[in-house]
């Protein structure tokens, strides 16, 4: 059965999160497909909810507090996971710091913070986990980004540039690690419900109206794409970005 290719039974997944409410949901999806899951980051409420969701699926799970901008802390986290489960098959990087401001009013500190919060953890976590994946000659890295990696937005210069950086990170690293059987892909989300970007009713209405499928995205919308990219089902896919935006990327 083709669907067996989506199975993650016996695999270990790490999910790094910052500021995205679907970190816990992703833990549930990967666990449902069979993986043991470790969530890391600093949002303890989010992480413990993720652990609970994974355990409800009958899998082992744990949360590890770590500063994702510190290589040392992330490496220690990796060691903790290896000690417990002896392997890491999947790394999901889901770090997001929303920011929108006219460019001329944007301070250098703000620019640096937006750029670094959205890209440095991807570098640090991928480097720490990837080193181990390269040794094993097996692994999957999945970066969660935004359609704004490829599209513009007024007041979004810093944010768009920071997300674009992660898509280019994905493409370049995919080539670097392709012959080592470590695949690097991205999922780009559109406008999601329950985010600061869609927190106002009038924004929700106008964004939904603009979106060809006439609704905001939900965590469920990324579930099977995430499992696909995390599993052997996608064995020939690397350097790809899967845009799940309700059709937004088709017009413009």
């Amino acid at each position, binding site marked *: 059965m083709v*669907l067996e290719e989506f199975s993650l039974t016996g695999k270990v997944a790490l999910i790094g999160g910052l500021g995205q409410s679907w970190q816990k949901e992703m833990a549930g999806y990967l666990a449902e497909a069979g993986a043991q899951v470790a969530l890391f980051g600093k949002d303890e409420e989010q992480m413990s909810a993720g652990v609970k969701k994974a355990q409800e699926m009958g899998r082992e799970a744990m949360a590890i507090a770590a500063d994702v901008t510190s290589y040392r802390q992330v490496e220690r986290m990796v060691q903790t996971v290896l000690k417990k489960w002896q392997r890491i098959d999947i790394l999901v990087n889901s770090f997001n710091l929303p920011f929108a401001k006219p460019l001329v009013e944007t301070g250098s500190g703000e620019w640096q913070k937006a750029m670094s919060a959205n890209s440095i953890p991807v570098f640090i976590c991928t480097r720490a986990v990837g080193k181990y994946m390269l040794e094993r000659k097996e692994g999957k890295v999945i970066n969660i980004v935004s359609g704004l990696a490829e599209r513009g937005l007024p007041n979004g210069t810093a944010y768009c540039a920071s997300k674009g950086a992660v898509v280019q990170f994905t493409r370049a690293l*995919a080539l670097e690690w392709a012959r080592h059987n470590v695949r690097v892909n991205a999922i780009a989300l559109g406008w999601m419900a329950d985010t600061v970007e869609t927190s106002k009713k009038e924004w929700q209405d106008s964004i939904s109206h603009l979106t060809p499928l006439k609704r905001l995205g939900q965590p469920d919308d990324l579930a099977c794409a995430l499992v696909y990219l995390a599993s052997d089902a996608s064995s020939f896919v690397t350097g790809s970005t899967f845009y799940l935006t309700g059709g937004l990327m*088709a017009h413009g």
Partner: protein
Amino acid sequence: MLEKLRLDGRVAVVTGGGGGLGTAMCLALAKAGADIVVTDFRVEDGEKTAAKVVAAGRKAVLFPADVTKSDQVNDMITKAINQWGKVDILVNCAGIVRDEVPKPFWEISDFEWHRGIDTNLTGAFHCSRAVAKHMADRQCGKIINIASGYGMRGRRGSFMYNVAKAGVILFTMSLALTLAQYGVKVNAIAPGLFQTWGPKERYDASASFIPMGRVGQPAEIGALAVYLASDASDYATGEVFSIDGGALFSGYAPIDYIPVIPLNE
């Protein structure tokens, strides 16, 4: 969540169903639960695929058609709808590369140009047009167009194929926007190089230029087709999904150019 990938009770029409990727997608969709209408003008190849689907435990029927002929396509889609009462999924996979032979550009004939464009692009238009009203009336449906990485990049000596596949990608986008209001989703798969016919050795030279160092096996496209045919991808429309071993973003530098350049302040 994974049960969303199931296609039980769905009916899929796969054009070019007798070819390498077409056969693989027919089998994958069938294994996920769909019944398959195989269509191909190569009757023997289509029959082989249909037999494989039946052996995998699903229903299959072959309705031969040349996708470049709209009367044949309309007839095929009418038969397909009548067969099991509906069509949920259309996979536009029929295509040819046969005319992309190394010869001077100025020797490409009118016939070759039109055959390349007609098969690779107009065929997808014919089939989508024939089934779209049916899908719109039912307020559901999935159309999957097989594009190519070459629809986004050029290739020396290759014209009809690249131009048509680029057309397929834009056709995917506009059709997705047009059919969104009817609940019909339209997406494209952009495959890289797959071992669709002949021995592995035939692909050795090309494989060395693919970042993963190998060509794809047809079966590897199956899961992506199932994902795009199923409810699991319901928030995706007008998108292009590449599956190419990393090829799309390579080619800017030689494959063995791996520089180390220190960062100087």
